[in-house]
């Protein structure tokens, strides 16, 4: 992005404050273009002919430093790359790392379909939404075009997720494209050996293409410059992910170098998304748990540092769960508030016999507790104490969750236990058990100690509620 103040952006807008974009003013729209919560195309007037020049100029000024490549079609299409900063606290990272999991064309049909289904169906609830994975990578281990074609076809019949077609043999890739080109798959990969044929495939089918040059950034740039020259812009760079030793250290450095060149030094001819292949862990680890663990380690390293897409093999929950969570960690927008407003919230339809549960106003804590309660159809009052956005355990240790703060929460909310409850009781989080006496003295309420994890509230209620 070449602009950094709303005023700079405003100069290119119609300046009519027409409101068609949904913002009150063009200036407000300008600031949302800067933080990328709006797109220029949200402004209907600027698309009109007379603003065409400004539209194009502004598009260029607002373009991300790292090219954004789109693969797949429809709702499951993925955006890859698109970053503007080297550190997430400087703005935020855009386009979360695209996670792909492999199948191969020598797998039995049953195994292939089973894996594809697991990949497509995986979901993990987190802060109001489900974390999922994004793509299926079809590897040709047969090197046989007809086998590959059949495997690709089977995958497209089983899932709507976008595909990565993986082979260094252009004939194999061509065979795969015959049955899925309309799904805009990614071609993996062009190398210094096969680049001519693979570039033709990418041009003909208008598909994104990965350039693969293990351990050699000069060669990678040579490929990128050449593909750009041919007219291919949807490029993803794979500098090779070596799974261990000094080669892995060099791999890490290569990711840093590519991204620094693209963002800090503005080297446009190398400013493309970067991909990692943690799956190479399986080349050096025989034991499946060890291989899966190391694969997750590599995936984590390259999620934190600049991997925009990656291919993995393990679809065990102990691989998928940390992988989707580290991605969400790194790509959560740090500008989003950490806290929810303190107060006493109703979950479901609480009555006088419903429990009153205490938690903190750290957003993650609040949403976790709230979803645990509502998912189990528990009606209750959830009292959210202002702990400066710190979680339960840490705020008990740090003195932000105290009896006085708890009392203040109910007082400020005008919550009268005599009127609202039949039991005059609050439930403290298990992690805050040490506050029990203080809370009893300060509030005059009965205090029960809940479970240390809100995931256990349902089971806890069965034996502990209503209070005797």
């Amino acid at each position: 992005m070449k602009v950094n103040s709303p005023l700079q952006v405003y100069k290119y807008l119609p300046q009519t404050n027409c409101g068609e974009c949904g913002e009150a003013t063009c200036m407000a729209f300008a600031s949302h273009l800067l933080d990328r919560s709006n797109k220029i195309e949200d402004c209907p007037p600027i698309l009109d002919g007379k603003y065409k020049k400004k539209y194009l100029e502004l598009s260029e000024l607002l373009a991300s430093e790292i090219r954004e490549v789109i693969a797949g079609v429809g709702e499951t299409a993925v955006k890859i790359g698109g970053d503007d900063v080297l550190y997430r606290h400087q703005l935020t990272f855009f386009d979360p790392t695209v996670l792909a999991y492999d199948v191969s064309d020598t797998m039995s049909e049953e195994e292939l379909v089973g894996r594809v289904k697991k990949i497509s169906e995986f979901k993990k609830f987190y802060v109001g939404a489900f974390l999922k994975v994004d793509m299926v990578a079809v590897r040709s281990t047969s090197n046989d075009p007809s086998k590959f074609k059949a495997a690709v076809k089977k995958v497209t019949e089983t899932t709507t997720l976008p595909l990565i077609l993986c082979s260094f043999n252009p004939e194999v890739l061509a065979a795969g494209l015959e049955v899925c080109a309309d799904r805009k798959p990614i071609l993996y990969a062009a190398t210094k050996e096969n680049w001519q044929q693979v570039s033709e495939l990418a041009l003909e089918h208008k598909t994104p293409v990965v350039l693969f040059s293990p351990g050699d950034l000069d060669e990678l740039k040579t490929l990128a410059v050449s593909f750009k020259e041919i007219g291919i812009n949807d490029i993803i760079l794979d500098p090779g992910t070596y799974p261990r030793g000094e080669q892995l250290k060099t791999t890490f450095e290569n990711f840093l170098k590519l991204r620094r060149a693209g963002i800090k030094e503005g080297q446009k001819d190398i400013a493309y998304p970067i991909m990692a292949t943690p799956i190479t862990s399986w080349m050096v680890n025989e034991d499946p748990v060890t291989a899966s663990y190391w694969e997750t380690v590599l995936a984590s390293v390259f999620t934190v540092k600049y991997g925009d897409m990656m291919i993995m093999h393990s679809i065990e929950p102990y691989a998928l769960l940390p992988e989707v969570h580290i991605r969400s960690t790194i790509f959560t927008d740090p500008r989003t508030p950490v806290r929810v407003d303190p107060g006493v919230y109703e979950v479901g339809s609480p009555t006088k016999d419903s429990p009153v549960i205490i938690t903190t106003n750290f957003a993650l804590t609040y949403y976790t507790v709230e979803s645990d309660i509502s998912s189990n159809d528990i009606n209750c009052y959830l009292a959210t104490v202002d702990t400066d956005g710190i979680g339960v355990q840490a705020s008990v240790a740090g003195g932000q969750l105290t009896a006085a703060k708890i009392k203040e929460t109910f007082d400020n909310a005008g919550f009268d236990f005599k009127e609202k409850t039949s039991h005059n009781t609050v439930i403290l989080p298990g992690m805050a058990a040490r506050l029990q006496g203080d809370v009893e003295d300060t509030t005059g309420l009965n205090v029960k100690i809940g479970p240390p994890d809100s995931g256990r509230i349902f089971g806890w209620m069965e034996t502990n509620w209503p209070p005797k």
Partner: protein
Amino acid sequence: MAKKMKINDVIELLKDADVEALEGVTFEGDIELEIDETAAGIDSLFAYTMGQETAKIGLYLLNLARSVGYPVDQIAGMPAQPLAPSVPKLSKLIESKFSVGTNDEWKTQIQEVTLGATSSDGGTRGHTITLGGEKALPYYFDAPMPNRNYVTIDVFDMPIGMAKAVKSNYEDVMEDPGEWAKKVVKEFNADLVTIHLISTDPLLNDTPAVEASKTVEEVLQAVDVPIVIGGSGNPEKDPLVLERAAEVAEGERCLLASASLNLDYERIAAAANKYGHVVLSWTQLEINAQKELNRKLMKQCGVDRDRIIVDPTTAALGYGLDYAYSNMERIRLAGLIGDEELNFPMSSGTTNAWGAREAWMVSSPLKEDSDWGPREYRGPIWEIVTGLTLALGGNDLFMMMHPGAVKVLKEITQTLFGSIKTDEIDLSNWVAEVVA
């Protein structure tokens, strides 16, 4: 009606025009730009072949056409009919060299802090460990990292509840902190041992400080690695407990965990100064509080710079690790560019990862989730990923619990540090060679 022009003619034609590069227009195949003279009023048809010059000229022409009101984007979007057949335009690759600079803003070195003292320095440790000293972000190519990451394994002065996957490693030693310490050093390769005096908590056993300090002596005798001494986290009692522990460990250059703004940090700092220890400066995910506490320790309490390590707080993967990671990364970047209140080695309570339900719970409490699988494999990887993420944010010292997690975290951090050599492998045909 076709008229050919040389490239120089076009450049001449365009040199006085206000032309700009056009983003977003892609040329595919050989360029043959056709402008209908009846529609545009331009009496030329340009056809060019081959190479970069062509593409650039195409852009200039489009801009020129636009400037006279020609509907350029319709042309650019036209079907490929006027394009030449799809043959690669390049007969060989355009050789290029990649280069990138180093970061010249990182001018300040992170403070080096040594833990442990050998007999030559008045202690009884077998060796010392030095943390910090970085001149760049961790594992970056800008400057070599002088010291590797280290792991200290938790030992408690009483049996405590812990996740099953962790507990199974320590059941035989839980009653005996000395044996526990030996086990983590000998069997689990701990670089240091942390003895947590949690039984001193008034809400637990309320063990008196004097008695608790005996456990410290016991651990010092059981192992010869540098040690970390932790209190119970009770802000009233910790200064007392750590003061007494510091006294019995005089000269051993232990890490006292911790000084914080919500307790009497002056007493802990004074004990470190008097008995020759290092202070862990602990704040909660707040960079300005970290600056404030470090400043107070240095200016108000007279703690030397080489006796401060900071713990900016570790939140588990999925439970605020995003804040913990960015907080550490910001602290480290601030240190590297010259903030002398923040350029200290960092420590992480990585054990906090076990608080995440994904690490220990038998199955998901939410019926909508996919199966979480066996928990004994989820816990260690949760601890590893939590620690590894913070390693990438600049953390130096890891306080951990699960032996398997320690092993893997050491392997990846030492690989990125550069001390693990293996045979080279050839990736050139990985697509077919990965057998899984």
